């Protein structure tokens, strides 16, 4: 409760200072609009923001789903077959060295201006933290528990399903929390490079017309979307990882 009040006070103080600065300085609204102006634009352009926000949200959700499926398969394969980990780990790390800005035009060229290239962009950004967290989770399992399962005569699949998978769940959700927070970056970069809808597209259009207030309104909607997705992950984490206290986790 105390931390929520502090967070609210901090945000309130920041917005108030911003508003104060915009009202009592010479700064032009097309350079930095006041928070009240951004709120006004959010209200005025709500249908437009909702339409483009929905497109971005769909890209993020489908990108997350795609990356989670791929991460689960790859992390499980690397855990069960150590040779696969040795072979794939360098490629996985190298894939993170590729700047997403360099990848985005290629994906648009390959998959077109449609939703596919944006989903893949979001998936590429999310994939790594989820895979690494999950693999770390599998590996951190107590060796004595593995001995116990072996003594019970549990096969690989049973041991994986009943022991390693639930054991790795807190790690998986930790990775997913980070992933959904950054997934928006991938989707928006994809939209910047080439698209006809989405908050990234709206930002580019607004920026070209010096509608800085609309750019900020798009950023605010994008931030709200990320916080909403993060909260959804936290909700499922609390529901499915009930044995771990996640109260203080970020």
């Amino acid at each position, binding site marked *: 409760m105390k931390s929520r009040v502090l967070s609210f006070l901090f945000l309130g103080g920041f917005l108030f200072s911003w508003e104060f600065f915009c009202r009592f300085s010479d700064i032009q609204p097309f350079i930095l609009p006041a928070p009240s102006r951004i709120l006004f634009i959010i209200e005025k352009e709500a249908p437009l923001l909702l339409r483009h926000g929905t497109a971005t949200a769909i890209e993020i959700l489908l990108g997350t789903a795609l990356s989670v499926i791929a991460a689960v398969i790859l992390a499980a394969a690397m855990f069960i077959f150590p040779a696969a980990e040795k072979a794939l780990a360098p490629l996985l790390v190298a894939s993170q060295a590729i700047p997403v800005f360099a990848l985005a035009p290629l994906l648009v060229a390959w998959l077109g201006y449609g939703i596919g290239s944006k989903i893949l962009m979001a998936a590429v950004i999310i994939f790594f933290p989820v895979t690494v967290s999950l693999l770390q989770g599998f590996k951190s399992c107590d060796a*004595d*528990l593995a*001995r116990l399962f072996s*003594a*019970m005569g549990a096969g690989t699949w049973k041991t994986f399903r*009943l022991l390693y998978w639930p054991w790795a769940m807190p790690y998986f959700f930790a990775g997913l929390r980070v992933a959904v927070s950054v997934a928006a970056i991938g989707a928006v970069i994809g939209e910047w490079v080439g698209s006809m809808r989405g908050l990234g597209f709206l930002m580019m259009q607004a920026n070209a017309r010096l509608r800085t207030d609309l750019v900020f309104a798009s950023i605010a909607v994008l931030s709200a979307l990320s916080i909403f997705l993060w909260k959804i992950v936290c909700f499922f984490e609390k529901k499915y990882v*009930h044995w771990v206290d996640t109260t203080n986790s970020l």
Partner: protein
Amino acid sequence: MIEVKNFTKSFHNRLVIGDFSLFAQEGSLTALLGPSGCGKSTFFDLLMGNIPRDGGNLFLSGKEVADLKNIAAFMAQKDLLLPWLTLRENALLPVSVKKNPSSSDFREAEELFEILGLSGSADLYPRHVSGGMAQRCALARTILFRTPIVLLDEPFSAVDAITRQTLRSLLLLLRSRFRKTLLMITHDVEDALLLADSIIILSSTPMTAREKLAIPTPKERQQGDPSLQEKKERILAMLQENVS
């Protein structure tokens, strides 16, 4: 009846278990008593087939077997309860890994929980119960392996003195009721004297059997029993020699 003949194991050319043999009668409790790090847990790993042995044979009722996987239950010093399962689900885990537990399995678990004083706690999660209750649940799980042999790896070393006393009594009760053959690793002389039919004193690495002591006294043993006191002093002297 378990017979271990000349087990040997080396790690990186260092002999850890040297020509170790053991004979345990059906329904008996044999305690393996030795200093920490002498190779006791490695011996259990060899028995369970978790690691391959370099030499030696294993016989079960006269028949040679490779290891005790699926034949022996295993209980460690940690309760090893899965935090995402309730106590009942944890106890039934050895059944769950093979099939969906039936109503008779649930009944059996209920009966065991009754004996172990856990009947009101079956639906609680491990984080909601004390260390002693968790260890009692681990004991129930060990029984529900439904194997004729039980390997106990310092099962009471992580609990307080009062809980230890309770667990000892419960172990004896379960043993007489389910007629299991038990091998128990311990470095607690009292655990060995109060529970075992025979005690094998182990040497430090490489682990070998130094001496085998039979404890013919009845099962209801008291800590202050003079005959046990005399044995305790003898064992402690032997262990002391081992260390020095």
